[in-house]
């Protein structure tokens, strides 16, 4: 398929991501400012990492004056879910995709860009990701830098409203396939219930970080579904 077509489609689907990022990054910027980072440093840090939980965790390490090794280890654990996402995308792109394009796609594997990339039908064209990254990365990095510069520029009510944009987008990705496929529907419901329980049980909520919870739940639920309901070749063969 034509690269230009996919790039444009990526740009369009990237807009809600960029808007949501802007709001989330803004609060990240406020945290960065408290950790002593300048707007420029924050712009570089967020623009090269593209991670919300990872960004917060990294800034906390800086704020606490942690060691470089601590930073490395924190990044590894908090961002481990991207390993799963990258593995999943390795099956979504054409086996013929060059290493350079693989690296290009990899740089932009965020929860949201991964979400929209998984929803594409057929093989994933790297230009779709580049399109989404073109709007999402500046949205993310500039939101964070602005957060450092002007703390509370947006009214609380607007920040609150923008904070659900990302989740609305996730719903738009998971609900339509769940409507078509009973197993996916069951998986979504089971995920909601278990995630809620993890969030509510003090023994889990107090001892396991939210990033780790996502990994554990994803591995366990997806594995159970894979064993109980293996997908047929053509269904999985994108």
């Amino acid at each position, binding site marked *: 398929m034509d690269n230009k077509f996919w790039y444009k489609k990526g740009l369009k689907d990237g807009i809600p991501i960029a808007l949501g990022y802007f709001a989330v990054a803004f609060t990240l910027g406020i945290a960065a400012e408290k950790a002593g980072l300048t707007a420029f440093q924050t712009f570089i840090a967020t623009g090269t990492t593209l991670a919300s939980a990872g960004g917060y965790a990294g800034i906390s390490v800086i704020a606490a004056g942690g060691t*470089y090794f601590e930073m490395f280890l924190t990044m590894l654990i908090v961002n481990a879910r991207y390993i799963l996402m*990258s593995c999943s995308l390795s099956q979504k792109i054409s086996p013929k995709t060059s290493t350079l394009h693989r690296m290009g796609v990899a740089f932009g594997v965020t929860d949201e860009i991964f979400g929209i990339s998984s929803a594409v039908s057929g093989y994933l064209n790297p230009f779709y990701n580049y399109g989404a990254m073109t709007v999402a990365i500046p949205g993310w990095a500039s939101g964070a830098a602005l957060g450092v510069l002007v703390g509370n520029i947006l009214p609380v009510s607007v920040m609150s409203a923008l904070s659900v944009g990302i989740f609305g987008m996730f719903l738009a990705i998971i609900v339509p396939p769940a409507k078509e496929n009973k197993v996916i529907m069951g998986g979504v419901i089971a995920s909601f219930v278990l995630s*809620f329980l993890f969030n509510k049980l003090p023994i889990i909520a107090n001892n396991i970080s939210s990033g780790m919870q996502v990994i554990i739940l994803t591995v366990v639920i997806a594995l159970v579904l894979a064993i109980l309901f293996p997908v047929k070749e053509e269904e999985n063969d994108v």
Partner: protein
Amino acid sequence: MYKAYIYIAIMALTIFLIRVLPLTLIRKKIKNKTLRSFLFYVPYVTLSVMTFPAIIYATNNIWSGVAALVAGVILAYKGVSLLGVAVSSCAVVFVIELIIKLM
């Protein structure tokens, strides 16, 4: 202040490695049926886990978050676009919180 840049470099490099290694090392179609099925289900499960209950705690008021969840599910079920669902969820939160404030 150069220390800040070392921290940032470690952050960026570690995250990039995490993302790039699976995508560049796994170049073939995975043959194992269970593993393929597992990777097929990963996106739906992980996005669901990240959405709920986070959506209801993201806003200033739990009920505006619940309203956004309900509206998002209904609109997505009806086939509204990505942007449409995202913007509508935000609008629902804004309106509900306005109503709560006025009550």
